[in-house]
């Protein structure tokens, strides 16, 4: 970007401040009435014309959910959620399914353009294939043809249910069972759409795949499900981005992501989570209660999670790896920022089952304002995981004296040949670093941005390029007003 444009952009960012993705789109919506019971589950399933087995699966999940209690162990506090006060299905109204992008509501396309994902342009630029999820349904998937040529299936979850039921049935709930936890069970009962990816044997996905999630409607929750399967020797890089309008009330986002990597397959899953974080007084914002888990089923398979968490009023997520195949590798790279009254309780779980399994955890937490940031992670070495290795590095940075940074790692080892190393530090931005930057003419805010970017570099370095640029800007914007 030329210097002038960059400056104008920066000035606009600073003056408009805060959350520039907070607009609301005026799209005609099909929303079902508030409330949640078995009939709602049937209604959602019916709207999507699902097969009986899927409805049964949903109902089983719903039953499990009803007997479950809201988890309270995370270091986050919020008033009890009334699950009957939300609507569990909202979809942009469209009578006939769109055949191409031209048939999609132009208002919807404009929304995505504002978000920086011009689907139409993207189709032309040889770039990233995007599946965009608007509230509950997937509205467009670009580059389908090109992907189909190599046998890659990239479509909305609903399409996958209709076109590839055998795959969905085989893998759905195989990593995150329907009754896994409170929010996963809720998702399993009422999920409306999401993305589905299947990479056939030996195929390296020719482009990065991406999903953009957007919550638009009021009083709704978003419950999408992502399922990615990489067959033997396949590899894929998947990007996920999210935004939502600014509202005073809190909205619930309870997603489930399941990854399956077979022999020597590799899946890289990157997230830039920028849901509306609430205002400076802590009003509004998204409750982001997400279950993400990957199973390294095959030998020498690899799953890598990278996340930049800047949004949401409350974040509760632990992207995990079950390292089942011998020699499989799990990675978790995370940057989580909490500013104002945001709360984040996030981390990972690495379950080592197979021999010679290896995991790396790098977590960078930044707290500013009244933010509370917790790393919570588990490294578990099971008795058969000979020669397993884990290295964990958790660093926390505190900006201001009203915030908190917490580290809660759990280390469990039942194999003497395994080696586990964990390191954690907490500190604030050093005065001398700030002084050095200020003396070079940077404003305090710019200096903090620079130092924070440096603090996060190990994580930013593993992000796909498109995301890395966005993430760096997001870091700076998220910390606005936290100094001086």
């Amino acid at each position: 970007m030329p210097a002038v444009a960059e400056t104008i952009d920066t000035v606009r960012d600073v003056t408009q401040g805060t959350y520039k993705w907070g607009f609301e789109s005026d799209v005609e919506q099909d929303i079902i009435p508030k409330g949640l019971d078995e009939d709602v589950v049937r209604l959602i399933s019916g709207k999507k014309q699902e097969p009986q087995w899927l409805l049964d699966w949903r109902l089983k999940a719903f039953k499990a959910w009803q007997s479950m209690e809201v988890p309270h162990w995370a270091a986050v506090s919020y008033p009890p959620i009334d699950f009957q006060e939300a609507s569990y299905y909202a979809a942009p109204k469209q009578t006939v399914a769109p055949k191409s992008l031209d048939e999609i509501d132009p208002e919807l396309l404009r929304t995505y353009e504002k978000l920086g994902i011009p689907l139409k342009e993207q189709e032309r630029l040889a770039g990233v294939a995007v599946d965009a999820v608007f509230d509950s349904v997937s509205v467009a998937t670009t580059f389908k043809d090109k992907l189909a040529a190599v046998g890659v299936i990239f479509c909305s979850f609903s399409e996958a249910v209709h076109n590839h039921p055998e795959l969905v049935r085989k893998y759905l709930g195989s990593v995150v069972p329907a009754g896994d936890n409170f929010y996963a069970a809720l998702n399993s009962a009422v999920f409306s759409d999401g993305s589905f990816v299947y990479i056939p044997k030996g195929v390296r996905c020719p482009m990065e795949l991406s999903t953009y999630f957007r919550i638009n409607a009021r009083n709704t929750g978003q419950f999408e499900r992502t399922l990615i399967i990489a067959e033997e020797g396949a590899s894929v890089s998947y990007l996920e981005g999210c935004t939502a309008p600014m509202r005073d009330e809190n909205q619930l986002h309870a997603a489930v992501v399941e990854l399956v990597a077979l022999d020597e397959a590799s899946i890289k899953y990157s997230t830039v989570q920028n849901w509306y974080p609430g205002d400076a007084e802590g009003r509004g914002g998204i409750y982001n209660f997400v279950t993400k888990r990957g199973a390294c089923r095959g030998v020498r398979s690899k799953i890598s999670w990278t996340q930049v968490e800047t949004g949401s009023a409350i974040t509760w997520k632990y992207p995990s790896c079950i390292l089942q195949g011998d020699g499989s590798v799990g990675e978790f790279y995370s940057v989580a920022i909490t500013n104002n009254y945001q709360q984040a309780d996030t981390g990972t779980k690495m379950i080592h089952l197979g021999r010679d399994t290896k995991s790396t955890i790098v977590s960078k937490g930044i707290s500013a304002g009244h933010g509370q940031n917790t790393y919570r992670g588990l490294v578990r070495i099971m008795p058969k995981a000979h020669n397993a290795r884990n290295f964990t590095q958790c660093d926390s940075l505190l900006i201001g004296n009203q915030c908190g940074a917490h580290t809660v790692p759990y280390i469990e080892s039942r194999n003497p040949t395994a080696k586990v190393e964990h390191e954690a530090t907490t500190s604030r931005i050093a005065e001398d670093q700030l002084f050095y930057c200020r003396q070079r003419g940077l404003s305090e805010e710019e200096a903090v941005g620079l130092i924070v970017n440096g603090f996060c570099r190990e994580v930013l370095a593993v992000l796909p390029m498109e995301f890395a640029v966005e993430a760096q800007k997001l870091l700076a914007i998220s910390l606005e007003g936290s100094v001086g």
Partner: protein
Amino acid sequence: MASSSRQPEMAVPVMDGAVREMGGAPMPLVHPSVAAMLELRRAEEGPEWLATLRDRAAEAFARLGFPTRRNEAWHYTDLRSLAELRFAAPERGGAARLPDGVADAGAPRLVFVDGAFRPDLSDLDSLPDGVRVESLSSLLAMGGGEGRLGALADAESGTFVALNTMLADDGAVITCTAAPEAAARLHLVSVGRGGGERPVAFHPRHLIHIAEGAELTLFDSALGEGAYLNNTVAEITLGKAARMTHVRLQAEAATGFQVSTVFAHVAEEAEYDSFVLATGARLARNEVHATLAGPKAVAHLNGAQLGDGARHVDTTTVLTHAAPNCASRQTFKSVLSGASRAVFQGKIHVHQVAQKTDGYQMNQALLLSPTAEIDAKPQLEIYADDVKCSHGATVGELDADQLFYLRSRGLPLAEARAMLIEAFLADALEAVRDETLRAALAAATAAWWARAHAEAGA
């Protein structure tokens, strides 16, 4: 912020689901053993404040019951083996002798048998000036103890503190005003006697106060035979610039249970320096709550836990920085053979006022057998920004390169292993500055190693 005041209830396996193969069946809400413990309570003859304290503790104990693994603070320590037992109150008096294994600490000795002070076995002739010692039972009998008993240990804080508060009838009450030059030392010995029809449970309560500028070295050793529960609570207050070196040796009977909870309140410029060596008991939990309450206070919590057989050892520390410019250091090592299991949970909690905190914690575990297990949860909870806090944890077996080096020098594998383990333990004991006490701990370590070694050889 909810987490500042209470522990989250739920533990890892249910974090967002995942593997639950370790979950145990939940215990019934009102456990018969809780009722059995409640029955042990005798009618209170003491003053009203004491009756109120005991009532509240009984109420808390009945409500809390024995913690299950669903209780976050007890997630890794399963108490079912303890809760199954119907404990009886120990018989007081009777003939007793000091067991052979009591180390000579070169200090006046207070002996407790089944938690009761035994002047006949104690040796208080050479009590240094400035050290006053009495038993809790005599203090209570004279109507004293108000405001001191329970000053730090809140019955609401947990089952075992509640149980102790409800039933504690004896313990050591120590007041030290001795200047550092006096090099005051004391040795506290606890002897557990099981072997009766029913296992006994005793609940000593020690109240220790080190006055402003005073200094005391306390050696605290526990041993015994048969099946019993030693549920000790110690309340320790250090005045301004006071110092206490607290060296503990837990060598309880292999069939015994020990739950020990220490509360240390460290005032301005004072220093609490503690080392715990755990080599005994079927199941042992050592819980330390140290609060740095005044500026420039210092706490050292160090220790080593050695496991063999099917023993379970648990060290849980909560180090609270409640004032600015304080420093804390924690180093814990675990060495585990057989099917033993060790737990280390260490939390550094930094309050918002505690700027310029310097907190460090290291926890290392050596697994010597394929059936041993270590569970570690080092934890930082920080609400102040100008702090330097870190923790580290490592788990593994003996270093292959080091073993290779020794073997290349002609040492047989077993000898090379023994040498490296000895070095690992010697390193841990370095933290004990008192040479006499370090030698006593080294002897206990050697005794453990002989056991573990035999086990490995078998």
